[in-house]
């Protein structure tokens, strides 16, 4: 929520923003056709996946102040729904993504409906438990390989020409851009003001006419669906999916760390945080072990929460004042 919006320079209209985003996607797509090295697409996919996850998390966590620790669960459910449907019916990727999003949206609806009446802490604890339980359930799901995991065959070429990884990259590009556009639209709409009111004082929000429960549940569904969509292409990206890789703790931590590092108040924060942190990790992966890498993310996150609670955007804005 940009406080100065109503008075100072008029903000870009929502339509204009969508157009710019579409143009950006087009430019990246055209540029991508020139790239022949698949590593670029592998690395880019990871960055975009985190942009998507961080943005999805922030719609609920940043705008409404409800902390979801269960990102890994939504993400993994998306991945496993996609694996199962692919094995069963062999559907095309866009359909798998929609299915993953739908199932995760439904789980968001159930979780939200049951726990969002309470103080936010209880919602958070429930999401944390959800992650652990889902892992137990999927470990028992033999159809998708259970504890042993399952191999997924990645086609060698994508439907647009170029490698399949390149296709996955464009898919993720589209999803991430879509998520950012949705987040910004939510932020600038009535819902954005309602969510900010909820975050600041829920009883006062109710008294001001905000249907807090409905808004929170709707936001949880949206956020969960986007996380599910983020997970759906994963099986094709990794080609071998097992519970430990799907329920990767790194995913859960990064998704929270990125918005907090970038700043949770606006759509740009999670994007900045995701790009920065995933590039740092990608770079560090070469030199240090993955455990040290994770430690780094954890420490950066704690550092930002304690010292710069409004993230990088907060620091920048503070400087400008």
């Amino acid at each position, binding site marked *: 929520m940009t406080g100065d919006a*109503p*008075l100072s320079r008029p903000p870009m209209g929502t339509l204009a923003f969508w157009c710019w985003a579409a143009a950006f996607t087009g430019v990246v797509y055209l540029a991508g056709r020139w790239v022949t090295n698949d590593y670029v697409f592998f690395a880019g996919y990871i960055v975009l996946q985190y942009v998507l996850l961080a943005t999805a998390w922030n719609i609920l966590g940043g705008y409404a102040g409800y902390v979801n620790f269960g990102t890994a669960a939504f993400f993994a459910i998306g991945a496993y729904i996609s694996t199962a449907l692919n094995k069963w019916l062999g559907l095309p990727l866009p359909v798998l993504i929609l299915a993953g999003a739908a199932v995760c949206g439904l789980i968001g609806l159930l979780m939200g409906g049951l726990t969002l009446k309470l103080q936010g802490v209880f919602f958070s604890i429930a999401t944390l438990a959800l992650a652990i339980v889902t892992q137990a359930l999927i470990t028992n799901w033999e159809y998708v390989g259970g504890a042993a995991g399952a191999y997924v065959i990645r086609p060698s070429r994508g439907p647009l020409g170029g490698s399949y990884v390149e296709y996955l990259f464009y898919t993720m590009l589209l999803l991430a851009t879509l998520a950012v556009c949705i987040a910004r639209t939510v932020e600038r709409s009535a819902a954005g003001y309602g969510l900010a009111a909820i975050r600041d004082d829920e*009883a*006062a*929000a*109710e*008294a*001001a*006419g905000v249907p807090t429960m409905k808004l929170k549940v709707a936001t949880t569904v949206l956020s969960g669906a986007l996380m599910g969509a983020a997970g759906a292409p994963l099986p094709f990206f990794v080609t071998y999916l097992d519970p430990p890789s799907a329920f990767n703790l790194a995913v859960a931590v990064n998704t929270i760390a990125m918005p907090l590092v970038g700043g949770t108040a606006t759509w740009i924060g999670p994007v900045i945080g995701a790009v920065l942190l995933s590039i740092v990790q990608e770079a560090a992966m070469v030199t240090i072990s993955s455990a040290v890498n994770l430690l780094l993310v954890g420490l950066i996150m704690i550092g930002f929460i304690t010292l710069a609670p409004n993230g990088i955007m907060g620091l920048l804005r503070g400087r400008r004042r």
Partner: protein
Amino acid sequence: MAALLDVQGLGKRFGGFTALADIDLQVAAGERLGLIGPNGSGKSTFVNCISGTLRHDSGRVTLGGQLLDALPPHQRTRLGLARSFQLPRPFGSLTVAENLRVPLLYAGATKLSDAECRERGMALLGQVGLADKAAQRPRELTQIEQRKLELARAMAAGPRLLIADESMAGLSNAEVDEIVDLLLRLNGQGVTIIMIEHIMRAVMAFSQRLVCFVAGRKVADGLPEEVVRNPEVERAYLGE
């Protein structure tokens, strides 16, 4: 005149403590009601129960003939019941203008455009004397300005019935008069108002009728001059 607000047998307990017992109260449309009572007599609890912030244990509340008991607070607000909080509860991350935008967007019957929202918001801020603070954050306001914001936010919901819970505590005499004038003007536009206040000067200047709570019970209800002379009210206030 049919009652706009009709409260019957309202009761509320906190654990073993009875905060409100069997309160009956009718408020006519267009009326100006003062509600007084010593500290802890249950006035704010009464407001919380009527507006749905707390759930009452017994009794029934209707607004314009519609039963409110099962409705969540936001629906009561949309039906035209707005309240201010005794301790201001502004939306801290929003500017003063945006604070009003929330009820303007959510509580009104019709959907307002961006420009209309801004215009209405600025008009309301002008009425409470906060026009020049529109772009500030609530925490940059003084306690008194926060009270004004709280009142303006309740007004922004476009209520039929406005309950102002101690909107004037800590204000100077001139400011009290300003707020009383504002509420009188609002009442002139047809808004029914319940004013909860310890400042007797304001209550007496404002109210057409006065109600007094003592220890969760309604002990007096009538013309202001009569109520303040009521022996039970005097005893509660003078502590004999």
